[in-house]
């Protein structure tokens, strides 16, 4: 029995962002929704007041599954004295009791150093020392929150000189030792291969432990976002603010030809002006998922 066979199939989901809430509720009410679950950034829903809790109750009342995807669990924080923020963890524990998610996830990165939050997903060195640190942190999280954890492959705009493993070796080693799942961001595969030209996506997918890939993120990204990117020999940024490119859809289709996925998320954090465009994207994704027998 593979790791992911313990989870059911949730189909296509959409990120619940403040600017989308009313549209999402309207779509559900009119039974026009192309999505069958919602993803939240849990840090935005812990320790909140009446207004947001009230908003959230409306979402919960739809009875659509809500799956949390964190940004500040910082599973790459190295210092043992500083790597547990119980203010955050206890807030998440309370939230998870309410939404009862099948799993939770965060990025393979570091956002907290010496107790300070840097507000960005800082990449990790790909080496054995960091594998051990991340594994310890994930084991602690899974134990404390009593929930399965998925790690997301982030986009990274740099490579450390202390790297001794490839990204692929790093991810496979972490999830194997921590007994965790993978949230595979197919746009990040494209961003990383475009910026670093280290691998072909087929090789990456073929060699990833696909038995642990439970969820997928798919999004659009910005190109030449800042002029200084070129100076740093980078071409694109993972912004979640644009239409999905055909190359990314191709990676997604290739992935589905190799394995089944329990949940797919169209990730969009801004530029919501035209929801009909998002609907077209959701329908395109569903078509690919249908071919992969996911819907």
């Amino acid at each position, binding site marked *: 029995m593979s790791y992911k066979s313990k989870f059911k199939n949730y189909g296509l989901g959409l990120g619940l962002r403040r600017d989308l809430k009313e549209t999402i509720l309207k779509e559900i009410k009119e039974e026009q929704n192309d999505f069958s679950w919602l993803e939240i950034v849990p*840090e*935005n829903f*812990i*320790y*909140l*007041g*009446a*207004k*947001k*809790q*009230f908003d959230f109750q409306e979402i919960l009342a739809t009875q659509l599954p809500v799956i949390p995807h964190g940004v*500040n669990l910082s599973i790459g*924080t*190295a*210092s043992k004295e500083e790597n547990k*923020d119980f*203010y*955050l963890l206890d807030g998440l524990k309370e939230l998870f009791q309410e939404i009862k998610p099948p799993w939770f996830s965060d990025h393979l990165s*570091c956002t*907290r*150093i*010496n*107790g*300070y*939050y*840097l*507000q*960005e*997903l*800082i990449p990790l*060195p790909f080496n054995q*020392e*960091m594998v051990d*640190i991340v594994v310890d942190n994930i084991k602690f999280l899974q134990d404390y929150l009593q929930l399965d954890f998925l790690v997301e492959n982030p986009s990274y*705009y*740099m490579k*450390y*000189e*202390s790297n001794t493993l490839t990204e692929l070796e790093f991810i496979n080693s972490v999830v194997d030792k921590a007994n965790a799942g993978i949230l595979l961001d197919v746009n990040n595969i494209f961003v990383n291969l475009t910026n670093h030209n280290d691998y072909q996506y087929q090789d990456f997918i073929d060699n990833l432990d696909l038995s642990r890939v439970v969820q997928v993120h798919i999004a659009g990204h910005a190109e030449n976002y*800042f002029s*200084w*990117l070129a100076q*740093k020999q*980078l071409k694109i*940024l993972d912004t979640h603010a644009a239409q999905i490119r055909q190359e990314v859809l191709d990676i997604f289709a290739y992935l589905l030809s190799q394995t089944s996925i329990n949940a797919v998320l169209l990730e969009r954090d801004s530029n919501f002006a035209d929801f009909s465009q998002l609907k077209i994207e959701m329908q395109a994704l569903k078509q690919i998922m249908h071919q992969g027998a996911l819907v």
Partner: protein
Amino acid sequence: MSSAIELQEDILRLFCGQDTKLLSVQEKQNLLVYKGLAISTAENMLAKIFKEIHAFYKDSWRQIIMDYLEHFPSRSPIYSELAQDFASFLDSDFFKNKYPSNNYLAQVATYKWLDLKIHHQPQKKALVNGLIQNYQVFRSKFNIPLLLEYLNSEQYEIVVTDDIEEQESVFFIYRYGLTTKICHLNAMSLLFIEKLEANLDLEQVEQEFIVQYQSSCADIEQEVKKLVNHLKNMKILLV
């Protein structure tokens, strides 16, 4: 200390604008992409929260936010709490030496943060005596509602270096339904709130007022009744 810890401490130093010890030139260059992205996101959020202050510093806002994040890196995983030290930053010698300033900026920022904090606070149950629990008493050197009205008015041309006259005031910032409100507290209403905070019931407060103000029972009873009605109307007292 492990090399990973040392590396991350160096990254923190880079984010705080300090000299690094281990990062290579190329690593520093690339990590600055992340620092730039963090500043871009914070710039927009803080401009929305502190819109009156942003209006003064539109041209230097990005540099101000970079200085802020370097001097006051956030200790909270909740993104909006990035705003909580902005008043201290505006009040710092560093800020005052580098940017044109005045005597009321930090007070405006303090109020804006308290308003946001109360808005985001979990709803708490009122005390047994009826006093709501989602509030903050704010002692200010200025009449904050009037000051904000002045700053948001298009009638005046306001110069950032112009101080304004101080006017000591005490305010009660509190959750009012789905929003927040601010109201002025006079000496008697402040004392009344303080007694309720100490878990006294209304009769006990009345007795303490009689001693405090050395006044007749009837007069005090009348005053307390008026005050209670006023606080009920304001939804500060839920009895």
